[in-house]
């Protein structure tokens, strides 16, 4: 009986590691930007290229910064969630259209609805690199002092919104 003990222990350890591995998503790379100041930029707005949007304008408010594109399939999944959220008025949502054209972006918003107060146009993807964007859509929760409190890689789902983003927004707004 004793000779089976060691193989059994090794087997259980391997099973433990594999089981943990099942719940890990290799696409979710922890961002080093969380708890750091959101990188500054100023980009022309989608609705009016003469006007620029900059995170500086948002100091003193908690806000969501959503990186999207008309060519991005998963953005279509999260779009209704963002639309619902924008209707509640709990937290302002600003967008950044990543590596896209004005025409396609405008058409996409006209068809699917516009949850954004404003959308900045990052046509060449330079600002995206500063934000460590690698898988659109990505969403940042930014606090009153301009610090990134949370980064969601991939679409915002009802579940993520309810369990992570909204409680965090409430806490940050109370600060």
């Amino acid at each position, binding site marked *: 009986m004793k000779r089976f003990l060691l193989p059994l222990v090794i087997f259980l350890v391997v099973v433990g590691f594999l089981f943990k591995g099942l719940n890990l998503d290799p696409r979710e*790379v*922890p*961002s*080093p930007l969380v708890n750091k100041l959101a990188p500054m930029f100023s980009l022309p707005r989608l609705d009016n290229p003469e006007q620029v949007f900059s995170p500086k304008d948002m100091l003193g408010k908690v806000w969501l910064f959503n990186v999207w594109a008309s060519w991005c399939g998963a953005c279509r999944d999260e779009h209704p969630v963002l639309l619902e959220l924008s209707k509640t008025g709990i937290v302002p949502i600003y967008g950044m259209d990543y*590596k896209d054209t004005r025409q396609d972006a405008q058409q996409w918003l006209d068809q699917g609805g516009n949850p954004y107060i404003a959308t900045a146009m990052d046509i060449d993807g330079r600002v995206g*690199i*500063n934000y*460590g964007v*690698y*898988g659109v859509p990505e969403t940042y929760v930014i606090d009153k002092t301009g610090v990134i409190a949370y980064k969601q890689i991939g679409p915002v789902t009802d579940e993520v919104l309810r369990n992570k983003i909204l409680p965090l927004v409430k806490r940050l707004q109370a600060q």
Partner: protein
Amino acid sequence: MKSHLMYHLIALCLFVHSGSTWAEEARPLATNAVVEVQVQRLSEELRCLVCQNQTLADSHAELAQDLKQEIREMAAKGMTDQAIIDYLVARYGDFVRYRPPLKSTTVLLWLGPFALLLAGGFGLFLTLRRREKVALEPPLNADEARKVSELLEIDKES
């Protein structure tokens, strides 16, 4: 017939010519050979985050192209390898490096295989020593030897 051949020749010339113009368009800023060597060296050390098991050098993803361009511009400004890697790690995290740095969270990753090798070697050593003991036991005592030879004799006679 002759005009037909002429046609083909012209078509061929056009094709060859257009091919060469494409090749020139496809290398923006890649004029400085020293910079290119640095870009190549760095892009073999850095991971493409879209297609995670490829380096930037291997990847044709759009983000990889953008990052290579970004590296090229930094290299052209005279930034060192370390400064450029730090710049990217600050944005994408350690994962962007193909060779993860040795620190407290990556100790298991770096030393785990060696620990397993040591454990395996130790296990092998123990097993071999146990077998040696078994082999050293006296093969047969006198009584047993006589029994064996008796049995063999019976076998021969039958």
